[in-house]
């Protein structure tokens, strides 16, 4: 699974993307964020507060309780601020 990070999530993790193979117990986007916190202090800091995170699965915005299913690309980022 390809992961993408944007804005301060990217800065705190220290990378814009990475490949991961989460265990089967990781079922939703929120589960994924929780599991990723164990990867580094930066991940832990970036992903600690789910209320500040938004997500996209295969380039569609989704709620964090969305099942990952056969997702190929998951992005985690703060609320958007374009325009």
């Amino acid at each position: 699974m390809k992961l993408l990070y944007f804005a301060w999530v990217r800065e705190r993790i220290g990378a814009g993307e990475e490949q991961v193979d989460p265990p089967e117990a990781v079922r939703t986007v929120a589960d994924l964020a929780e599991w990723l916190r164990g990867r580094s202090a930066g991940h832990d800091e970036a992903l600690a507060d789910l209320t500040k995170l938004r997500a996209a699965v295969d380039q569609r915005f989704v709620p964090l309780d969305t099942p990952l299913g056969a997702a190929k690309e998951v992005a985690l980022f703060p609320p958007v601020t374009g325009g």
Partner: protein
Amino acid sequence: MIRVSVDHAPIDIGTELAGVEETGAGAVASFTGIVRGDDGVTCLELEHYPGMTESALCDLAEQALARWSLLSAVIVHRVGPMTPGDRVVFIATAASHRQAALEACAYLIDRLKTDAPFWKREQRGEAASWVDARPGDHQAAARWTAQSAPD
């Protein structure tokens, strides 16, 4: 006609508007968002999600075309570093009459604020900070889903 562009280059409003006017519309509405420098911002940097951004903007334009009788919808968003006075975003809509053009233009900028993956980072001298989302933006976007479509 839908035109969506996400680019580092400055936005040329004249060229964009000329393209919209060529559709033969009786009414063209547009919105331009400009970098403000009134609170000490020296640089504004726009990050986005390449690939998803373009498809999200196309989706918004398609929704506008489905909701109003439009001849054209154009969304141009600049990314990368900008300075106060630079254009960040330009939206134009063309229709036979003004109401559809004006409403669709407002719809597109309201929805773009909450439904397209862009992130702003402000620089004030040496200090940089990511811009927080404004609750008012969600209220502005929500008013379009609270209403039923005119058709």
